[in-house]
């Protein structure tokens, strides 16, 4: 139980600092610290992200930093996108595409760091 609380604290901190859900740390930590298998870790992480994102959005909203219109413009089309993405995952050679996507992420990262 202590491990779960530590995972939550770390994930919440990163979620608020970076505006992400925190799955990138929750999933591997559940696997390593709590012996979850990958599938159960990913599913459980999604539900935890729901809470961390809600807490982050609510806290930032109180400080006037949330732009609801902007969030809707990307967040609502993304619902359709995620559903399509999970279907496509069964039909595309995701394994080979992953390196391409990693490169795109790295390119945006370099642009922001430089």
């Amino acid at each position, binding site marked *: 139980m202590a491990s779960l609380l530590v995972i*939550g604290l770390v994930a919440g901190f990163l979620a608020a600092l970076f505006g992400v859900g925190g799955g990138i740390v929750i999933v591997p930590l559940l696997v390593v610290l709590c012996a979850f298998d990958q599938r159960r870790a990913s599913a459980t992480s999604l539900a935890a992200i729901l809470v961390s994102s809600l807490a982050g959005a609510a806290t930032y909203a109180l400080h006037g930093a949330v732009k609801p219109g902007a969030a809707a413009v990307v967040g609502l089309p993304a619902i359709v996108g995620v559903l399509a993405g999970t279907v496509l995952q069964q039909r595309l050679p995701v394994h080979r595409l992953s390196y391409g996507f990693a490169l795109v992420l790295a390119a945006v990262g370099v642009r922001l760091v430089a």
Partner: protein
Amino acid sequence: MTLVAVGVLGLVAGVLAGLFGVGGGILFVPTLALGLGLTQLHAEASSLLAILPTALIGSWRQWRYGNLDLRAAGLVGLASIGGVQLGVVVAERIPEATLQRLFGALLLAAAAHLAWRTRRG
């Protein structure tokens, strides 16, 4: 960038998140900052709101598949509220350019993580 173009980017971000199993937030933040011209802080704050619908649908599906450990998710989620408070304080205090660089470093880490995961199979 027009709203339609940003909406398309949101759609693409969703597809990529579903395909590669990454969170939407890591793609929403640059879309909001570079596409709509939000400040890094406002992009991050708005990204957290934008994540909610997809996380809700994803959680519901996983719950139906029986993969979700509700007790563990509840404990991680509960503790995350404390971490969030600290994260907000830090994000609001560090300079905008530093926050953007740190986010860029997170993207590089995510890219490395994805490549490593792919290589392992």
